């Protein structure tokens, strides 16, 4: 009997009933990111998957795991920490949100610079299509190019192509000795004058923070700071981020590095003003789905109404 069999059976039943009633359905976790990522989502029924909690498989030696989509990132972290491992994502809603939400409505991660975006940590997963078919994508190994990488399509679809049951994740060794610094001149980091830090962010105007694992760089533009100060700044940064719309883009290319070391000053200023990011530096285009989404949704479940859409009224 596969893990979560009862939840999956209930989800299938909900999909079947909704199709019969002509009701639209969208999958969700605990909806902690919903207001930011899909403020206009008004399905007739929610397919709540927060019950898919817990680790299905944790292979510490291989540094991979498979976890239920409803698992809170903070709960996963509590399992990984004693093993010296982590999921290399540091994003808002770690305690109240779910892994599925984190990956399907992806935020920028504070570890992006060192480890890449959240989606890069996902090797594959188990999914429920809108017609109730269960599929697996990807592999449990860290490297596989067999077949199409459907995981990439599903992750950005915000639940419109598939409902997430589990995610197979690449794990990383946890930083062992974190040295925190206030950075006097952030552009120096971008210009590759210093080794890449694990963490790098700017929680408020005039201050940036960086942390290196296991080294103490001697550099005039760095001021060592207590780890508590670093932690408080990190929390402030995540809070500011959680208060912003999820879709944003920068005007003026030099304002950001392509690897996610973005202009937190602008984000913070916007959050304080309570009206989104500061004008000029950041704009927030409306959430625009890919023009391919309808055709992909039809391909994912050809004989059922796609997630978020109603079945045509019976003639």
């Amino acid at each position, binding site marked *: 009997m596969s893990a979560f069999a009862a939840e999956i059976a209930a989800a299938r039943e909900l999909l079947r009933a909704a199709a019969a009633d002509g009701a639209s359905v969208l999958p969700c976790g605990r909806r902690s990111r919903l207001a930011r990522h899909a403020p206009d989502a008004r399905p007739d029924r929610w397919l709540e998957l927060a019950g898919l909690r817990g680790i299905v498989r944790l292979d510490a030696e291989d540094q991979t795991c498979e976890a239920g989509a409803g698992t809170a990132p903070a709960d996963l972290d509590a399992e990984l920490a004693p093993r010296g491992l982590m999921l290399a994502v540091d994003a808002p809603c770690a305690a109240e949100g779910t892994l599925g939400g984190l990956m399907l409505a992806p935020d920028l991660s504070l570890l992006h610079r060192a480890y890449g975006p959240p989606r890069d940590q996902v090797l594959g997963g188990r999914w429920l299509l809108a017609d109730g078919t269960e599929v697996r994508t990807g592999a449990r190994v860290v490297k596989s190019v067999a077949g199409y990488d459907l995981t990439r399509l599903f992750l950005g679809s915000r639940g419109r192509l598939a409902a997430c049951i589990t995610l197979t994740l690449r794990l990383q060794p946890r930083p062992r000795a974190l040295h925190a610094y206030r950075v006097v001149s952030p552009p120096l980091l971008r210009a590759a004058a210093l080794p890449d830090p694990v963490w790098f962010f700017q929680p408020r105007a005039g201050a940036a923070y960086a942390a290196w694992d296991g080294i*103490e760089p001697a550099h005039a533009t760095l001021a060592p700071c207590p780890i508590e100060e670093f932690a408080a700044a990190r929390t402030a940064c995540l809070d500011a981020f959680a208060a912003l719309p999820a879709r944003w883009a920068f005007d003026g290319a030099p304002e950001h590095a392509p690897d996610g070391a973005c202009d937190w000053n602008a984000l913070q200023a916007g959050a304080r003003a309570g009206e989104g990011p500061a004008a000029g530096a950041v704009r927030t285009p409306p959430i625009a789905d890919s023009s391919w989404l309808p055709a992909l949704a039809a391909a994912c479940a050809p004989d059922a109404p796609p997630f978020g859409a109603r079945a045509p009224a019976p003639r």
Partner: protein
Amino acid sequence: MSSQVPLRELRAGVGARWVLTDPASLLAYESDALTLFRCRPAAVVLPGSAEEVAACARALHGSRVPFAARGAGTGLSGGALVPEGGVILALSRMNRILALDPERRLARAEPGVVNADLSRAAAPHGLRYAPDPASQTVSTLGGNIAENAGGPMCFLHGATGQHVLALDVVLADGRREVWGNPTAAPESVDLRGFCVGSEGTVAIVVGATLRLIPLPEKIITLLAAFDSVQRACAAVAAVVAAGLRPVALEVMDQRAIRAVEASAYRAGLPTDAGAVLIVEIEGPAARVPGEAAETERVLRAHAPSRIERAETSAQRLAIWKGRKGAGGALGRLGPDSYVMDGVVPRARLAEIMRFVEEVEEESGLPVANLFHAGDGNIHPHFSYDARDPEQVARVERAGARILRKCLELGGSLTGEHGIGLEKQHLMREQFGAAELALMERVRRVFDPAELLNPGKGLPMRRGCAEAFHRHGRIAS
């Protein structure tokens, strides 16, 4: 395939001199580096720009002629072949680096740029392009993207997909789109990520925005000799489990070592060792020596016969020249060579290598091993004689047995070479019917007429396989 190749339109699109139809010119395009499969295209077109690729696609799509893009032809799964009557779009003329932006650490390049040329161009800015397939002095970015190519350094830095920020693509019907964006900001469905590794069946990449990373301050390369491949694999698992993050963890067995040492790639590797493990550690000068020392401690617990440390760049380069030249050096072991590609969870490496030895004995064909151990990605090289159908059958049977064992251990049919023509008949063993049907439907979203590199990546429908000529029969 009875459709007529629209030669007049193609010549009008790219210029007559860039449309090749004479048999001598076509000969070079009838296979990639996996010579088990051969199929001569009806024509080869060499477009010089994205717009010319789009014009070719429109013409071919309009005439219902199958076509595929090809870079340097170094692929190892038969991915850049077209069925009889089809056309190859060779992108080797599109080899310009369009922009290098050191401040934002990114490059824009055409698909025909040779992998190593991009790192060479970035080096004066203190930057490099991380993916480093062994073919990197020849293979092109477009092919690397189509296969999601890896390489030794991918253990730390990730494969091609993690370094592609945006793609300019031409669809099967000639439409042009941009997938992804250079900010890597949150997005809708990740067509960029989906396209990487789709083996040229979803779209033709005509331009790419790629991430560059800083050159490391300090590099130390350790070369540990062990009496067996299994010991070396156990050491690899221990390094990974210890939470160390070297940039590369590569194993070569004795046959590979001896082939290298007998070749122009000679690197001073110990020919009496059962296997060598190359561990490279890079990063800030303040951290690398300590990590190297810790790595050495972990390695010593696995009884190496010796450990050497290369710190000068000349020593390092010699080791890597040997490692990356090994594939070529192995050519001398037999008339033909079959390079396999499979993946297992890292903790199961020693087990799969024992199995490879068993299969080698059974098949009676010599096998050399050099592989990306840190990623669990094995590459047994079989030597055989393609003129002997019985040997071809044996090498294919051996390959299929090893791949099935990879799956049994929780792995994958391919880590970086792709499914291509080579492994499409094994896809049903890694994926279920629902997954494969879904992949077929998604393919048709992008290419409803099924003209773009048909027959690759997914199991072929009955009757299609005959359009490709090959030695022997498909092993099952």
